[in-house]
């Protein structure tokens, strides 16, 4: 009986191909959007994770401020140059160590200007961040320690300030700091988190401290862990060292934090999780609308086919058989819509991931969920029309014009 009902439902749907398709459209769009967004999101996450991985799983970033799950970051004293030297000297696993001190500032050359991120650091920072120099050179040891007014431009800054003009040897002004351009970095493009990694000006740490910040603070320390050393162990060593240097009593919480890339990747994926929840809400709304569309058409269907229902009832169909017939029709409609939506979503996201240059990652779970969900929509929104059909009085239904 159920397979005959299914056959009847399919035939009914085929009879009104255009109408059936339009009815499904809500579900198709809802499911398609969910599938596309989840697939694209998954691809983007994969790309971010891969990018973070490229930065190196041996990278540690030390920042002031404790990290509490409940209250987030709390402000705290910055580090000093001596802290950096201490890490270099006392943590055997630390391979490269670079201090950073930076701010957003306006870079000016001639009549052009560009707001960018200025970072005071040392030449090691370029190695840690895998920047390479396209033109000119990076800071020398002497320039770094003396805080000479020299700078290395990211590709974006170079383009915005100089266009096709020659940048090397020119003097630009960044806030109160005038500096000579000694190098230009090779373009790296966007980071996984969407930042333009080429929108930077690098200056010697001392220069940034004196001329831009007006203090001796180091706001961040980048450390790479020597190969063969445990990242966790080096992290612990840095934490112990800094606790001692910052006189933190035993039992008190850190007023700084050392994060490795695994943690950052986790942060990113939790952000993605929030995004997914939002998408889920949007999807729920569009599926609701799709479901209402199905209910609407099924109600029209029941009215149009009142006579047919009358015939079936007269011939001996029981109310529940008529109910089942219309319910199956609604479910078949919505699941076909779901399947088309899954196909369209995959196709769309495949094209989008190609265009965005992120990997195409299909999440099998979401396909199953989308399918089941569209069937459930059919049951929920098909029930009312089906019940209406089942409750028809055969005598009146037969008389219906």
């Amino acid at each position, binding site marked *: *009986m159920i397979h*005959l009902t299914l056959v009847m439902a399919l035939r009914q749907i085929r*009879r009104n191909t255009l109408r059936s398709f339009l009815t499904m459209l809500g579900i198709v769009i809802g499911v398609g959007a969910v599938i596309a967004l989840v697939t694209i999101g998954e691809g983007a996450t994969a790309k971010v994770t891969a990018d973070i991985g490229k930065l190196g799983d041996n990278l540690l970033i030390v920042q002031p401020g404790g990290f509490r799950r409940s209250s987030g970051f709390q402000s705290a004293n910055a580090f000093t140059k001596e802290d950096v030297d201490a890490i270099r000297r006392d943590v055997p696993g630390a391979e490269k160590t670079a201090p950073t001190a930076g701010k957003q500032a306006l870079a000016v050359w001639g009549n052009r200007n560009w707001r960018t991120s200025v970072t005071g650091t040392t030449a090691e920072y370029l190695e840690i961040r895998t920047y390479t120099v396209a033109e000119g050179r990076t800071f020398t040891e002497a320039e770094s320690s003396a805080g000479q007014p020299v700078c290395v431009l990211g590709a974006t800054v170079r383009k915005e300030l100089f266009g096709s003009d020659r940048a090397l040897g020119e003097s630009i002004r960044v806030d109160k700091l005038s500096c000579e351009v000694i190098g230009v970095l090779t373009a790296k493009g966007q980071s996984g988190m969407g930042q333009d990694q080429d929108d930077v000006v690098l200056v010697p740490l001392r220069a940034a401290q004196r001329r831009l910040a007006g203090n001796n603070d180091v706001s961040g320390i980048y450390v790479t862990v020597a190969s063969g050393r445990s990242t966790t162990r080096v992290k612990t060593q840095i934490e112990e060292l800094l606790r001692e240097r910052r006189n933190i009593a035993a039992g008190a919480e850190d007023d700084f934090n050392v994060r490795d890339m695994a943690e950052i990747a986790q942060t990113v994926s939790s952000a993605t999780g929030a995004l997914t929840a939002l998408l889920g809400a949007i999807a729920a709304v569009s599926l609701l609308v799709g479901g209402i569309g199905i209910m609407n058409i099924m109600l029209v269907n029941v009215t149009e086919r009142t*006579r*047919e229902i*009358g*015939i*079936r*009832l*007269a*011939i*001996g*169909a*029981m*109310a*529940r*058989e008529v109910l089942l017939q219309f319910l199956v029709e609604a479910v078949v409609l919505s699941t076909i819509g779901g399947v088309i939506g899954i196909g369209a979503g995959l196709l769309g996201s495949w094209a989008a991931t190609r265009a965005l240059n992120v990997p195409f990652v299909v999440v099998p779970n979401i396909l199953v969920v989308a399918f089941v969900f569209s069937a459930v929509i059919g049951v929920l929104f098909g029930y009312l029309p089906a019940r209406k059909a089942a409750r028809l009085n*055969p*005598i009146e239904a*037969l008389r219906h014009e």
Partner: protein
Amino acid sequence: MSAAPGPVVEFAQVFKIYGAGDTEVRALDGVDMRIDAGEFVAIMGSSGSGKSTAMNIIGCLDAPTRGEYRFRGVDVGALDQDQRALLRRHYVGFVFQGYNLLARTTALENVELPLVYRRVPTRERHEQAMAALVAVGLADRAGHTPAELSGGQQQRVAIARALVSSPSLLLADEPTGNLDSARKHEIVELLVRLNRQLGITIAMVTHEPDMGQYVSRVVMFKDGRIVDQGLPADVSFAGPISNRPLSQRGGA
């Protein structure tokens, strides 16, 4: 009680009353009636005479307000809707004035429909439906949809659908109402043949006196009551039935 010959239909003081108080309408006003197995009965009367109500009750589509209706010995008034549906499924075949075939569905599939509800397996279903189409002379039209058939052919498909499940009772409600006179006679002759050759009990509702000539018995309704019954020759068809001076009252 299913043993033939015996009463298929027994009405004992059946009332069907709509509304209440001043607006009360007695569609059936105490009807006693009996149809035996093998009979071909014409239920006649003008519109509003109660013949359609009687037909709905006979076909187990409706239940009497008062009184007892026994179908094959079963008290239909005591049954719920689903039980009545099952009675119809297994023992009643319907033929309607408007054919009432499923549109865009082939003749064969239309005839198969009652068997679908009877859960007859596919192959037997095809065979039985084909046999019914042969019986009404439409074997060569099995694959046609109602739109591709003439009115007379559609009604013959409807008859095939009604007899495919070998019903205890075939109910025909104005089966010739939509047809020209040549087709009318064809259809009634087909019903007569089914009655004589297959022994199918038939109750036909009609308001056309000349259709009454074919049957074994005529039951004449007026104002919810049976006013006359007997052999076609003994029942007066002369003139419009509503002019018969038995009752001047309006009513249902």
